[in-house]
């Protein structure tokens, strides 16, 4: 019997390792910064060993197997950034949108089984790729990385009462395309130019895995291990413009031009992560959770477009008109690699069931997270601005039981607030003639939201 159990455990371990083996690098994620669902956000995102609602799709898919009834959740959050350089607000875009998902538990061959779906749907867009000149100051981890949808589907099982295992995929899309433009450009009236284009563009699927396990030592202590894959959003665009340049609509051309542009961008890079988590209940109504998340920031790819341009415009017979300076092929910019360091991010959270009544329960929550900036000091030409982040969070929750005959389960309403403080500090440039120069940077980010969950 012991041997059989051993073999079973080995099988599970091998399966889990196999799952980890297929994992490939993934990318940027608003949930990393602001949490997923109000309960997790209020507890400093320390939830890997203490989650069984829809947010388990992100925090630890294994937790889905702990659910005992169908649950549907819907919520909203908004994070407003007040980030400054030299005292000037950099107007970093807010992150806001719906969060939600479901957990559908059941049994297969007598074994607890669950399917989960998690979604963060930004109000304005599914994702945004933005590649800027590398010397332009930008809050690298907050400006654009969080502007994207999160969609994950997971399965989980609990082969033993003390063990839950889950895994699944998250989905994103990258863009690759080529553009061919031909015709005649009328330099006297460019809007009348007789040009047309054809496009071959693909949004290619990016799927990156997340897998997790949870082990309950006893009713009061549990540990968790989670792996999240890495992803990158890309925009690769080739454009070719070939045609005549003329004075006036179709007529004798001045010259014939060939202009090619190739731009390859990587953005919204989300590094792979490994989470080790624990949850401890010293008394019945109190839970204390601790997660440590290793983030592979050193694999980060700078979101700068690699540009290749060729401009071939022979001078017309008799030379260019005096009003036009002869165009020349510009010199491509050399991309300076961004230097980042791997980090271990601690998350701590606590939940106190402060009110216990037959028909309702009340919860108080608090948490803290410390993100040491992974970006090396920006003393050179690049200006990837970042600072350490201290995130303090708190929240409340109410659970209402058997509200009506139509809702035989419970209804949970949770709210959270989070204040991220990025202490202001000075960046000194090594070159006194640097175009940007020395600067101070810092600020804070408010994140508030609420989630409603209906359990059946």
């Amino acid at each position, binding site marked *: 019997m012991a041997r059989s159990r051993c073999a079973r455990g080995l099988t599970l371990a091998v399966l889990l390792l196999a799952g980890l083996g297929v994992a490939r690098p993934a990318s940027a994620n608003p949930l990393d910064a602001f949490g997923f669902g109000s309960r997790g956000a209020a507890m400093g995102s320390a939830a890997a060993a203490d989650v069984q609602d829809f947010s388990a799709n992100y925090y630890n898919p294994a937790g889905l197997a702990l659910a005992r009834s169908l649950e549907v959740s819907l919520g909203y959050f908004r994070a407003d950034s007040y980030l400054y350089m030299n005292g000037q607000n950099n107007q970093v875009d807010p992150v806001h949108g719906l969060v939600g998902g479901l957990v559908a538990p059941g049994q297969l*061959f007598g074994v607890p089984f669950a399917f989960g779906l998690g979604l963060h749907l930004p109000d304005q867009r599914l994702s945004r790729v933005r590649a800027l000149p590398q010397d332009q100051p930008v809050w690298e981890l907050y400006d654009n990385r969080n502007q994207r949808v999160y969609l994950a589907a997971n399965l989980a099982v609990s082969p033993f009462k003390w063990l839950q295992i889950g895994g699944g995929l998250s989905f994103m899309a990258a863009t690759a395309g080529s553009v061919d433009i031909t015709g005649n450009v009328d330099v006297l009236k460019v809007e009348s130019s*007789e040009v047309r284009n054809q*496009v071959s563009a693909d949004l290619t699927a990016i799927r*990156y895995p997340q*897998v997790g396990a949870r082990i309950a030592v006893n009713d009061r202590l549990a540990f968790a291990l989670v792996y999240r894959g890495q992803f990158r959003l890309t925009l690769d665009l080739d454009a070719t413009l070939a045609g005549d340049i003329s004075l006036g609509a179709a007529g004798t051309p001045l010259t014939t031009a060939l202009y090619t542009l190739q731009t390859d961008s990587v953005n919204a890079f989300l590094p792979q992560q490994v989470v080790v988590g624990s949850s401890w209940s010293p008394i019945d109504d109190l839970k204390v959770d601790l997660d440590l998340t290793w983030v592979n920031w050193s694999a980060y790819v700078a979101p700068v477009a690699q540009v290749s341009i060729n401009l071939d415009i022979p001078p017309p017979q008799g030379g260019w008109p005096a009003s036009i300076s002869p165009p020349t092929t*510009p010199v491509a910019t050399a991309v300076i690699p961004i230097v980042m360091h791997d980090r271990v991010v601690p998350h701590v959270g606590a939940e106190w069931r402060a009110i216990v009544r037959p028909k309702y329960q009340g919860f108080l929550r608090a948490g803290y997270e410390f993100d040491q900036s992974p970006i090396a000091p920006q003393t050179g030409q690049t200006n990837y601005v970042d600072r350490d982040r201290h995130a303090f969070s708190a929240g409340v929750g109410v659970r209402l039981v058997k509200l009506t005959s139509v809702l*035989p389960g419970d209804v949970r309403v949770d709210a959270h607030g989070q204040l991220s403080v990025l202490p202001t500090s000075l960046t000194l440039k090594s070159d006194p003639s640097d175009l940007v120069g020395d600067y101070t940077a810092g600020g804070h980010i408010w994140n508030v939201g609420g989630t409603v969950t209906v359990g059946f």
Partner: protein
Amino acid sequence: MRSARVLLTAVVLAAALAPARPGLASPEDIFGYGSRSPGMGATGPASADGFEAAYANPALLAGLRDRKFTLGFQGASFHLTANGPGLPGLIPYDEAKGVTIGVALPIPFGGILKDRVGVGLAFYTPTAVLVRGDILYPETPQFSLLPDRAQLLAIVLGAGVDIGYGVRIGAGFSAVAQLEGSVVAATDATGHVGTRVEDQLIAVYAPIIGATYDLPVGKPHTWRVGATFRGTLAASFLVSLDGSKLTSLPIPILNIGGLAQYDPAQVAVEAAYDTKPLLVAVGATYKRWSQYPGPLEPTLTCPSTDASCSALSPASIGYHDTVAIHVGADHAIPVTRSLTAHVRAGYFLEPTPLPSTLPASTAYSSSTHAVVDLPTRYFDATRHAITAGGGLEISPVTVDLYGQLHLLQPRTETFTSGPVGEPGTSSQASVGGHVLVAGMLVGVKF
């Protein structure tokens, strides 16, 4: 039991991680959707079962009684031909392959809503791409309405409610992503070129609304009629390219893009006769193709106040509305107390919305330095689709297979001859070919 646990754990992990590698599938509007419908002539508004009802008719989700997770694979290959002088004959296209994920969830309300509400989620992700936008020059021979439309991520979510008296209603949506963005190239003070690239994926949605009516009322029904409305689902590719800051030579800002994917608004009606061992469904779908503007958009848009502007505009094709006919049947055969087999067959007729005579397109000719007419070589033909399928139910597992053969009804298309010196001077094309589709889905109730 323990070995079952280990096996189940393995299956769950494999299912969760396997789709990280290429899979397959193809869009619902061309081939039908789900476990049963594609084998039954893409019927569904009165006969869909399980998660496939999210697309076919969300009202039928009200009848869900079991939670079910379905994972499937689908592939389609295209053999499409356009024959005539200067035409290529066989036009090669990639196979369309993808993965289907379906979830059917009865919502366990109590009281008056008990056993009356269900939710379905249908998710189809092509193996290679989420959205393919091949927006080619119109003189390039192409079947613009068929192969690339099969390369599209489809997300469908629906819910249905049984309101009693034999009436069920439902609503949901289809969602797809479109791309918008800009590329600005410019030189900095040091003479180096840099670009600012920004693109966004925007979700676009199309509503799905449906209703069914069971007869006789108050007894186990034998007849059901259903109707579904689906809104227009269109995905664009719109990127502006600005190179004007690279030189003092005036270069216009170019709008690169077009309509990469398009499903017309449609209304589907169906009647189904169900005696439990035998299910027969007959329906029709009206598709409003006349609103389809075509795949191309102008590279330069003339100011509305400039009547003398001579920028090129795509030809107006004049697509017309169509009515598709669907017929299908499913026969359940009890094999043992725990095993039931299903045999399915069907047919559907999908008329082409493309007119047989196509207007000329225009382009600037680098050889004559003038704007010339070019043939618009868009090809399509009415499709006759013969379908077959089968299934096994061994509780809690179901396995469904289907195949489709689409035969393009041969026809002749007429278009403007190409100018002298341009390849392809034929003014007519003989269009035909076939499409093969196959799929397998495995579902598990939990």
